[in-house]
């Protein structure tokens, strides 16, 4: 058993950076991410953490500095939120296409206007096609564990891709919970030294991003795609190893609770999956055959794992905390497309958009919505494919 501290989600990120022995942190403050940077600065100042903090003038520069340090051979972390991430967006592509290991903590926050600091997943989904590995935590313990795992995944030669770890604004970022810290030496031993595919440190003449012909470029992008496919196995392996060493693993890319015999599945991602789990526990007590499938890694998309549990179910209800305007919720779109890889006879899959703008969705509300969905199908009715749940 490691040391137990009471940490907010943001502090859990900071302690993970310390445990991973990060060399360089470059970040620009934004609510609700600010306390990550503050805590890291505090840990450096007190001598508990041996790292350099680079002050920058914007988020674009934050990731640019992080990327530069990483290319030069440093283990790095940056953190941001909402519009900060939007401003970083260009460099997210640079980082993944240069195949440079970087870890970014994202405190998910709604986009403006309407100035809003609460959690939606808009900013997260905005990075869907950047070539980053995208993960989402359920609670503060998982924030800490996943951030440490992220370094191991990112620096694996089979992968060499940047990893984003998301946590919901306030619901996790500012909420204190007991968090167990793994042993620092053991983490260092497990992570090993910084590993990357190439280094630009002045000893050898090397340039990144020269003009490349279409065929060469396409092959590089294909390799990024292959590395992302390969990361599926690496993520599972890393989670298993972590479990063996530190006593906690999370089921790889998804966590499925009450799923083995379930006729229905409720699918979600992020902290509100916990509220959904509680709702499903209530439904189970009433005899409903339902499980919760929580997506832990959104990229690579865990379609294989979802199919494993969705095979033979009568219906899936997918909760999205964002929407792709003119289409559907992003998690829904991927779930439908993912299952279609395995069957042409899809079960009923409905999409509920809710909690956008940080609207609180309680376990009781999840209970009503999920129960309604099951009742409709059991009564021979077709539930609507997409609904926007909003109460006032």
């Amino acid at each position, binding site marked *: 058993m490691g040391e137990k501290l009471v940490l907010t989600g943001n502090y859990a990120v900071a302690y993970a950076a310390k445990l991973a*022995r990060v*060399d*360089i942190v470059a970040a620009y403050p934004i609510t609700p991410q600010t306390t990550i940077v503050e805590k890291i600065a505090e840990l450096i100042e007190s001598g508990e953490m*041996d*790292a*350099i903090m680079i002050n920058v003038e914007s988020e674009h520069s934050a990731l640019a500095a992080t990327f530069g340090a990483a290319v030069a*051979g*440093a283990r790095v972390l940056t953190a941001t939120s909402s519009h900060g991430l939007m401003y970083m967006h260009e460099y997210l592509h640079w980082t993944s*296409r*240069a*195949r440079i290991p970087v870890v970014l903590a994202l405190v998910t926050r709604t986009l403006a206007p309407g100035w809003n600091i609460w959690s939606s997943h808009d900013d997260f989904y905005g990075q869907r096609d950047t070539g980053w590995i995208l993960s989402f935590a359920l609670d503060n313990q998982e924030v800490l564990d996943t951030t440490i795992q992220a370094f191991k995944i990112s620096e694996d*030669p*089979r992968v*060499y891709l940047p990893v984003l770890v998301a946590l919901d604004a306030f619901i996790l970022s500012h909420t204190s919970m007991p968090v167990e810290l793994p042993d620092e030496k053991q983490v260092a031993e497990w992570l*090993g*030294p*910084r*590993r*990357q*595919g*190439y*280094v630009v440190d002045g000893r*050898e*003449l*090397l*340039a*990144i*991003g*020269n003009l*490349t012909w279409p065929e*060469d470029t396409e*092959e*590089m992008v*294909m*390799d*990024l795609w*292959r*590395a992302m496919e*390969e990361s599926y196995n690496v993520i599972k392996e890393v989670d298993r190893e972590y479990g063996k060493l530190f006593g906690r693993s999370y089921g790889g890319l998804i966590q499925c609770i009450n799923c083995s015999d379930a006729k229905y599945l409720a699918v979600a991602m992020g902290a509100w999956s916990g509220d959904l789990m509680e709702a499903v526990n209530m439904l189970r007590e009433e005899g409903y055959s339902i499980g919760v499938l929580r997506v832990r890694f959104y990229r690579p998309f865990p379609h294989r794992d979802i199919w494993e549990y969705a095979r033979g179910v009568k219906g899936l209800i997918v909760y999205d905390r964002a929407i792709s305007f003119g289409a559907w919720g992003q998690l829904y779109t991927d779930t439908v497309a993912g299952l279609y890889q395995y069957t042409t006879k899809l079960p009923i899959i409905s999409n509920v958009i809710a909690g956008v703008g940080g609207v609180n969705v309680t376990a009781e509300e999840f209970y009503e919505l999920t129960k309604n969905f099951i009742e409709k199908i059991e009564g021979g009715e077709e539930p609507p494919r997409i609904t926007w749940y909003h109460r006032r």
Partner: protein
Amino acid sequence: MGKDKLVIEKPLYDRLPIAKPMVGVAGKTGLWRVEKPVVNNSKCTRCFLCEIYCPVNVIRVEPETGVEIDYDYCKGCGICADVCPVNAIEMKPE
């Protein structure tokens, strides 16, 4: 910093957007030249600006002898002549 030794290990999928300086597929690009940089080494102060600014890395400044240009690859862009603070390089038609 420097807590551990950095490990460079080849990726499994290894087509990366990186390049090392080498002779390009176009071969000896000196043929492209319209004007040629001609150096007056007696004027040269060995400031190294031409070496630093040369975009194709074909200039070396030797402290003893002065500026040396590899004309096999110099495309004659004229940047060296432009940055020289003492006008020791002159662009002359081929």
